[in-house]
């Protein structure tokens, strides 16, 4: 430490450091501020050295988080001070360049007589000005000058100029074509290490900053027409890619650098993928990218997933998809859904043959059923239905999966559907007669959700129908199942059971009604659409794509579409993508099928399902069947639909009349905040209720993990459509809500499981954003979910000796925090004890000899482990509206959050807002104002 410092400043800093707690620190800071203020008032007596010292002190105070509301004038005065040292301090405060500076700055930048340092700063200054006001640079004049500037030899100036160029080009790529060749030359020079001063090589790489910036500029020019330039760029990229391996091995000395360069190669490659030429050379890195998929850091895993997804084509699809499937079993759940979706899309896009596709998807469901959205298995069903060759194979594979001991529910659905439709194709194979298939499926029946039960009932009647003229034994079994479920609790299952039972008596006409499903109309894969959507909003998903979307450059958009639509890749499943390039049409078709929420099952059930939509459906069912056979034969679904329309007529006005009363605004029947508060203290109950819907919650908590089941119950006699529920988690929680069904049938209830993982302590709560349409109006609301801090607390009974020992060892802030809380909701000690226990903070009675004090202990759980937290509350029997709260734990942020959380619970919100003085006094600025 050869440097001379300012003594006064050092003394002040050590004083602050020696403070035992925040209170003391604030007193010291306030004292210093008062001191500085008086000094500045009598400015004449100040030497430049003193002024400087005080400004530095103020800056230090500012850094500690105190509001410094004076001294700006002094700072400005310093800027204009005659001596350099003062000027420099003044500049630190913050720079404001006026627009009138622009021409001068430009002159400085292009004048060759200036020192590099000045020109460098001029370039950045111009950039700053340009960001504030794009007019300061006019394109025509500047594109030539920029090109000239790029001839610069000095790397420092070049880096600065390149920053400016990135900004200019981002706003107007067309204007700067003449810079492209120069940029390629620069990057060539860098990669060949020609004429690069030693100081600018960083760990053997010539100025990586300039390289990165230059490549970024080049990304705005995706198609370079001049073949020579293109060739040299291609060579450069090749060289970089080849070089990455070598660099990685050389750099053994520093582990952090290994990550750096690994990421460097990843990063640059992601971007360069956009340049079609380079794709080939990237493939050589496939193995390494796959390894990165197992990197401990999630952002690297995400990126490598992105990259694999981007580089997949027909030749390597099989390998990549298999790799993804293998990884799926070990991947953590933050990435699983995306992984499953991507694997499904790649399998669909590049499948070498259809049976492979079916294999992949079924494997996917087996390995990660929870993360396979309905869209994925609907898609399989569509494929199988539309490709006759595939049907027998799919049914046989599905049957094999059902033989396994633990079968995921989604698998039961697919298998049930496929076997219902196509098991008759297998009838000749051993072990595959209808009589053998039926018990295999029915084995799973008791353990599945009601929607799956309904689907399985449809499968049974289909199996039964295909076994005509009949196997009396099978018929007996199936009919007994129908009979049994005629009294089932769930209306859907009950209705299917009754109707199928009646239908099965109909003999040959049943064959007509239960005919195989017609082929699906071709439409854009819902999956691809979904992938495009998620690309848009997943935060960390892909920095590149995100950036592409944000920048409005045409050039980049074109490239993006190119890779997203996959026009460059052959698409063997032409039935999927041909003719559906037009996104609008895709949307249209999507919206047409939208209302039938469970797409496939609806069709499987044929008319029966559609009748359940209104109350009179049951009465009319026999009528429909009597009338049906003649016309139904050809197109069962469409022919039935008109029949049910008349009954809808009379039913509707009734429903509307109810709605009209409060259609303009559907109000909850109670107070949402009361519900929320109640749920903070218990694990299940009502979160929201209005005349149409009731949302209930049931939570189970274990350590840092929790499972919350959200129940959406339709109270009304009309189906609720366009149901949407999204959870917006705060940063300290990891949670995932599977998509909710779009439609809730009348008087039905839907359950949505939601897994929660606590990452660290925080008082924020997640928000459930939900909306639905009750056929008259759309109702929406944002509800706080009661995933509060206390859910991750567990009472920690503790002995008095332990408590005292730990309490002592946690001496002061930030691990032990104390605060005098005012405006407390007055309550007795016993009430407070009860409140604490309700929040899983275990009160140890008698540990503190003073009966007016409470001592409690609890354990806070987060992903990183358990933290023991100790709490002490000292109340004043004379004034129950204030108390002293002390919280201690080994983790500073947990201490702080727990203290604030308890405070929130104790303080009556209304009394605080009514009494601003209590609030205001906590700020240092206010305290200061009080002093003066």
């Amino acid at each position, binding site marked *: 430490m050869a440097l*001379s410092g300012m003594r006064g400043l050092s003394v002040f800093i050590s004083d602050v450091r020696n403070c035992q707690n925040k209170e003391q620190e604030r007193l010291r800071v306030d004292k210093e501020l008062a001191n500085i203020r008086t000094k500045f008032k009598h400015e004449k007596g100040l030497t430049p050295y003193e002024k400087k010292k005080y400004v530095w002190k103020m800056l230090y105070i500012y850094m500690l988080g105190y509001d410094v509301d004076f001294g700006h004038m002094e700072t400005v005065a310093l800027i204009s001070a005659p001596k*350099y040292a003062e000027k420099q301090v003044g500049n630190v405060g913050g720079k404001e360049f006026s627009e009138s500076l622009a021409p001068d700055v430009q002159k400085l930048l292009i004048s060759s007589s200036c020192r590099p340092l000045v020109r460098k700063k001029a370039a950045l200054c111009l950039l700053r000005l340009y960001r504030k006001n794009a007019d300061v640079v006019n394109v025509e004049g500047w594109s030539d000058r920029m090109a000239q500037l790029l001839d610069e030899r000095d790397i420092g100036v070049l880096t600065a100029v390149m920053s400016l160029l990135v900004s200019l080009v981002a706003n107007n790529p067309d204007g700067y074509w003449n810079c492209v060749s120069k940029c390629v030359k620069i990057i060539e020079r860098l990669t060949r290490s020609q004429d690069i001063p030693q100081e600018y090589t960083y760990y053997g790489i010539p100025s*990586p900053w300039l390289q990165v910036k230059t490549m970024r500029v080049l990304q705005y020019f995706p198609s370079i027409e001049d073949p020579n330039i293109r060739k040299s760029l291609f060579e450069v990229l090749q060289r970089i890619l080849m070089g990455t391996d070598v660099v990685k091995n050389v750099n053994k000395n520093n582990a952090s650098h290994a990550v750096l360069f690994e990421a460097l190669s990843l990063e640059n490659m992601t971007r360069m993928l956009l340049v079609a030429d380079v794709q080939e050379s990237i493939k050589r890195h496939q193995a390494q990218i796959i390894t990165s998929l197992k990197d401990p850091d999630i952002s*690297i895993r995400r990126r490598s997933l992105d990259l694999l997804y981007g580089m997949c084509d027909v030749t390597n699809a099989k390998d990549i998809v298999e790799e993804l499937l293998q990884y799926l079993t070990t991947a953590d759940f933050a990435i699983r859904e995306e992984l499953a979706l991507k694997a499904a899309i790649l399998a669909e896009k590049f499948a070498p043959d259809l049976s492979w596709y079916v294999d992949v998807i079924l494997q996917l469901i087996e390995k990660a059923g929870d993360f396979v959205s309905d869209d994925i298995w609907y898609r399989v069903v569509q494929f199988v239905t539309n490709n006759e060759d595939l049907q027998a194979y799919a049914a046989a594979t599905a049957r094999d999966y059902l033989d396994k001991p633990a079968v995921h529910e989604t698998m039961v659905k697919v298998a049930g559907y496929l076997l219902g439709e196509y098991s008759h194709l297998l009838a000749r194979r051993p072990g595959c007669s209808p009589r053998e298939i039926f018990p295999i499926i029915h084995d799973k029946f008791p353990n599945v959700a009601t929607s799956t039960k309904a689907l399985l009932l449809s499968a049974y009647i289909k199996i039964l129908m295909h076994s005509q003229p009949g196997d009396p034994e099978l018929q007996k079994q199936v009919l007994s199942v129908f009979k049994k479920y005629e009294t089932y609790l769930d209306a859907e299952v009950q209705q299917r059971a009754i109707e199928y039972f009646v239908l099965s008596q109909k003999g040959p006409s049943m064959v007509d009604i239960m005919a195989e499903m017609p082929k699906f109309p071709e439409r854009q894969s819902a999956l691809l659409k979904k992938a495009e959507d998620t690309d848009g909003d997943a935060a960390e998903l892909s920095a590149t794509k995100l950036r592409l979307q944000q920048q409005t450059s045409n050039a980049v958009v074109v490239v993006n579409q190119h890779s997203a639509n996959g026009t460059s890749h052959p698409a063997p499943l032409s039935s999927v993508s041909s003719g559906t390039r037009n996104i609008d049409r895709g949307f249209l078709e999507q919206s047409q099928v939208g209302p039938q929420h469970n797409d496939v099952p609806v069709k499987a059930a044929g008319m029966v399902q559609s009748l359940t939509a209104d109350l009179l459906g049951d009465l009319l069912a026999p009528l429909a069947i009597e009338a049906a056979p003649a016309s139904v034969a050809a197109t069962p679904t469409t022919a039935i639909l008109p029949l049910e329309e008349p009954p809808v007529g009379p039913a509707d006005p009734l429903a509307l009349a109810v709605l009209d009363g409060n259609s303009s605004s559907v109000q909850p029947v109670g107070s949402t905040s009361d519900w929320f508060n109640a749920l903070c203290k218990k694990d299940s109950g009502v979160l929201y209720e209005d005349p149409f819907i009731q949302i209930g919650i049931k939570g189970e908590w274990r350590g840092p993990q929790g499972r919350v089941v959200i129940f959406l119950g339709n109270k009304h006699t009309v189906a609720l459509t366009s149901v949407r529920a999204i959870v917006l988690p705060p940063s300290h929680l990891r949670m995932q809500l599977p998509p909710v069904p779009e439609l809730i049938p009348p008087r039905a209830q839907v359950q949505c499981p939601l897994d929660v993982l606590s990452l660290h302590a925080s008082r924020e709560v997640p928000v459930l954003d939900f909306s639905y349409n009750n056929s008259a109006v759309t109702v929406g609301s944002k509800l706080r979910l009661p995933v509060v801090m206390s859910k991750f607390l567990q009472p920690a009974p503790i002995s008095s000796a332990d408590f005292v020992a730990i309490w002592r060892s946690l001496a002061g802030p*930030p691990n032990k925090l104390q605060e005098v809380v005012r405006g407390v909701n007055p309550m007795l000690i016993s009430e407070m004890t009860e409140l604490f226990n309700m929040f899983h903070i275990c009160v140890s009675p008698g540990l503190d000899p003073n009966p007016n004090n409470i001592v409690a202990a609890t354990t806070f759980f987060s992903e990183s482990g358990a933290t023991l937290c100790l709490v002490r509350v000292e109340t004043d029997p004379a004034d129950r509206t204030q108390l002293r709260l002390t919280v201690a734990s080994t983790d500073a942020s947990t201490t702080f959050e727990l203290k604030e959380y308890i405070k929130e619970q104790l303080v009556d919100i209304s009394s605080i807002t009514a009494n601003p003085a209590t609030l205001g006094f906590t700020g240092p600025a206010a305290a200061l104002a009080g002093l003066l």
Partner: protein
Amino acid sequence: MINAVLVMNTQGKPRLTKFYKQVPVEKQQEIIRAIYAVLSSRGENYCNFADASNISGSDNKLVYKHFATLYFIFVVDGAESELAILDLIQVFVETLDRIFKNVCELDIVYNFNKVHTVLDEIVMGGQVVETNSADVMKAVQDIFKLERAV
């Protein structure tokens, strides 16, 4: 651009804060706390970039490096390359190391004005001015000389 440069120790105490955009004090403290919460939950073997879009603004990223008891953190927007920034942190730290001869946390605490000077030679107005450690050293030394001359 670079939105902020922070140096804080592993307990979350800020040792140097520099924001290149106007941010009110409370918000600054909030950001610092949020960043600390993110960093302290990340293991040693995690990569040096983290998403900060819900801390300081959309498409913001944290690029940080952990040296002994200190975190060096740059909050940057999407226009910066994370890797380039990571290298820049290295340059910053190397320069500090040369100036203070084996820099430690206390050097930074007691000479935070000098650290500011060094930083100002590397980053200006949210843009990288100089990446050459030798040049930065020279400029900083010149400034110190001028200061002493007063």
